[in-house]
């Protein structure tokens, strides 16, 4: 039956249904997660021995550049946009996003710039090699002399990604501000919605700065302007400012929705209301505000004057206050709760632990004396992989497991899920913990060969990486197998409280037959207040098939 929720062809069409687009984002981004993962396997394969022996050095440079770029622009960003797309309209009681067609266009730009980026493997000279931050003057080198080169395609892909993200951000902010159901006041919104709002506001004010820098770099590279070329009077540090003005807040764009996911998942499986809901919600916006004034902490070693270092050290440490508030709120939420350790809960708890660890190394890095010492070493690499793999990827897995029954109408296999969690948790720590001692010992990042004294921890890290590579297999098996022949999911398998759980799994096109009339706060676990006053009118009653 065409148009039915289970009609698979919709997922390959220009659909404007936010739920279809959400799943399109999720599946596309997971494909690129695997691509970026293969690059990571090559990097760790190279680093298992001190010599540069597995791949050529230029290939190695291309690998870490593409690994970072793919993982950020083609995996975490679009994946979280997918979750936001699927969940936000359901959670606020809307029938779709504010601009469904714009939404679809924004999604279809993802495979376009993904293809452009991958096409750089086919041009002479290969892909960009200047790292995901593309600092000039390295990124201005064009040894082949061709107009179309790896770095140029990289900039093009990033620019298109920027346009797509701005479209998405306009859509999300409008949707959340104006499409909430009757009674869904600001302080009745689930925290996930708050965090998506906070993250998308960052996109709106931050991304244009990167676009500006990317345009200037592209002009330098192609038509011969001299903005960033120090040999011709340009200023390469200015690019670093443009880049980090966006790219540090970009970390909050991906971690904020993860905070939202923790805030959704923990109360459900602890059977307790979220502790300090309003404070958790507001602290998301405080993080958004502070994220605009911390970027120079990436540039402590870039000839930054002393007063500037002090100011940005202070602002960076300040941002741990709203973040710490959230962490304590989550701990208080599960404290004394009746925990049910489902796969989603395990991933949320694991992600939380990893996040605390990465937060501690983050504070260390914010301190100028420490940062000057470990700048550009593996300590930094270890820190942000604990954030991005430990917290973000595990948070994404928590969300996928938690909402899998809602999205597909099927239950997942807990056994495979727990195996997936065990492999991921062990693999993450095995892979990324050794990077901290390596960094403190002085091993620089982005090198294909290293001093043999670093061998032990590198071997451990590489084994952890291969374990992480394998950990995706039970996940893929679980997702495909359960979607095809899993047990049919009821409306609300987790006894969760939220508008999305009042609808059948998966919800029908346009979600709500009658808009819900919300009458109570979210997370009313252990209370008996109804969430909406018209629960029986949300859907057309139909015979179970």
């Amino acid at each position, binding site marked *: 039956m065409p148009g039915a929720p289970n009609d698979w062809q919709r997922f390959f069409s220009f659909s404007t*249904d936010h739920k279809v687009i959400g799943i399109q984002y999720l599946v596309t981004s997971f494909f690129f997660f695997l691509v970026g993962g293969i690059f990571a396997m090559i990097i760790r394969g190279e680093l298992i021995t001190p010599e540069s022996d597995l791949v050529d050095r230029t290939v190695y440079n291309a690998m870490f550049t593409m690994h970072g770029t793919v993982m950020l622009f083609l995996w975490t960003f679009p994946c979280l946009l997918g979750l936001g797309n699927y969940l936000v309209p359901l959670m606020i009681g809307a029938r779709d996003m504010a601009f469904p067609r*714009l939404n679809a266009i924004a999604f279809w730009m993802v495979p376009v710039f993904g293809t452009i980026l991958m096409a750089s493997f086919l041009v002479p000279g290969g892909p960009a090699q200047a790292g995901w931050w593309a600092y000039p003057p390295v990124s201005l080198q064009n040894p082949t002399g061709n107009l179309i080169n790896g770095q140029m395609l990289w900039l093009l892909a990033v620019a298109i990604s920027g346009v797509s993200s*701005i479209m998405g951000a306009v859509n999300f902010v409008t949707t959340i501000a104006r499409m909430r159901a009757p009674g869904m006041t600001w302080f009745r919104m689930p925290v996930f919605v708050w965090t998506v709002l906070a993250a998308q506001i960052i996109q709106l*004010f931050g991304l244009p*700065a990167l676009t500006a820098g990317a345009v200037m770099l592209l002009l330098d590279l192609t038509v011969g302007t001299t*903005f960033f070329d120090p040999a011709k009077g*340009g200023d390469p540090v200015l690019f670093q400012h443009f880049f980090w003005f966006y790219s540090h807040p970009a970390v909050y764009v991906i971690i904020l929705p993860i905070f939202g996911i923790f805030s959704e998942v923990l109360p459900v499986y602890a059977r307790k209301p979220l502790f300090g809901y309003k404070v958790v919600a507001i602290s998301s916006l405080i993080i958004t505000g502070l994220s605009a004034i911390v970027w120079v902490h990436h540039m402590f070693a870039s000839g930054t004057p002393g007063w500037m270092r002090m100011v940005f050290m202070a602002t960076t440490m300040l941002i741990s206050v709203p973040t710490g508030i959230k962490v304590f709120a989550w701990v208080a939420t599960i404290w004394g709760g009746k925990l049910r350790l489902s796969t989603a809960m395990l991933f949320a708890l694991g992600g939380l632990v990893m996040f605390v660890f990465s937060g501690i190394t983050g504070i260390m890095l914010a301190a100028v004396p420490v940062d000057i010492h470990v700048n550009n070493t593996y300590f930094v690499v270890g820190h942000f992989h604990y954030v991005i793999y430990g917290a973000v990827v595990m948070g994404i897995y928590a969300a996928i497991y938690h909402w899998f029954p809602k999205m597909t109408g099927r239950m997942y296999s807990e056994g495979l899920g727990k195996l997936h969690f065990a492999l991921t948790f062990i693999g993450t720590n095995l892979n990324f913990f050794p990077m901290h001692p390596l960094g403190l010992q002085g091993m620089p990042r982005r090198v294909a060969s290293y001093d043999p004294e670093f061998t032990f921890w590198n071997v451990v890290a590489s084994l952890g990486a291969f374990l992480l590579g394998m950990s995706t297999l039970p996940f893929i098996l679980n997702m495909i197998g359960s979607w095809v022949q899993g047990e049919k999911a009821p409306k609300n398998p987790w006894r969760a409280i939220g508008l999305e759980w009042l609808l059948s799994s998966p919800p029908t096109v346009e979600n709500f037959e009658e*808009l819900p009339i919300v009458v109570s706060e979210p997370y009313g676990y252990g209370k008996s207040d109804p969430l909406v006053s018209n629960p029986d009118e949300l859907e057309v009653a139909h015979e179970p098939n």
Partner: protein
Amino acid sequence: MNPTETDLRDDASPAITEAHGDAHHAAHGHGSPGDQMFGFVIFLLSESVIFFSFFAGYIVYKTTAQTWLPEGVLGLEVREPAINTVILVSSSFTIYLAERYLHIKQLWGFRAFWLLTIAMGSYFLYGQAIEWSHLAFGFTDGVFGGTFYLLTGFHGLHVFAGVLLQLIMLVRSFIPGNYDRGEFGVASTSLFWHFVDVIWIILFLLIYIWQ
């Protein structure tokens, strides 16, 4: 307040009120006029950050560059750009008048002032082109040349886009029933024009006055 079943499914229903707007999103593929304006304002705020980034870059270069003006260049001629500025700023008033005429349903008054705005915008672009063609430096002549052409060019692209939008709105004003769903097209084009205007004033002060 909830829309009825027929409201929801009827794709061709022309009368969309603010209150019922939400219900029609999925059916029509775009938001209610109020949502559209809200989204457009957000977009403009975001767009302004690109300009502010360029402005910030310009200020950094101007205050720190070892060599600022290219050899043989003494400065910029202000007379022509000043005339251009007056034209562009005035066009913000003519477009406002056009909008007022549309509000009181006087289509010909709207078209007249709208066309005048298009003419003024086009003159601005013409003036910009004339200025460029007489300059003694190009965009590869140091960071001064680069930022000058980047800022005026990027702003010029926005003026060009604005004139194109105005042309589309002018043609659409001849379609019967064009304003039944509100005046979002005209209102947003007008807002965009004011935005381009304000950006130009900052740009003019930065590049031409602060030499």
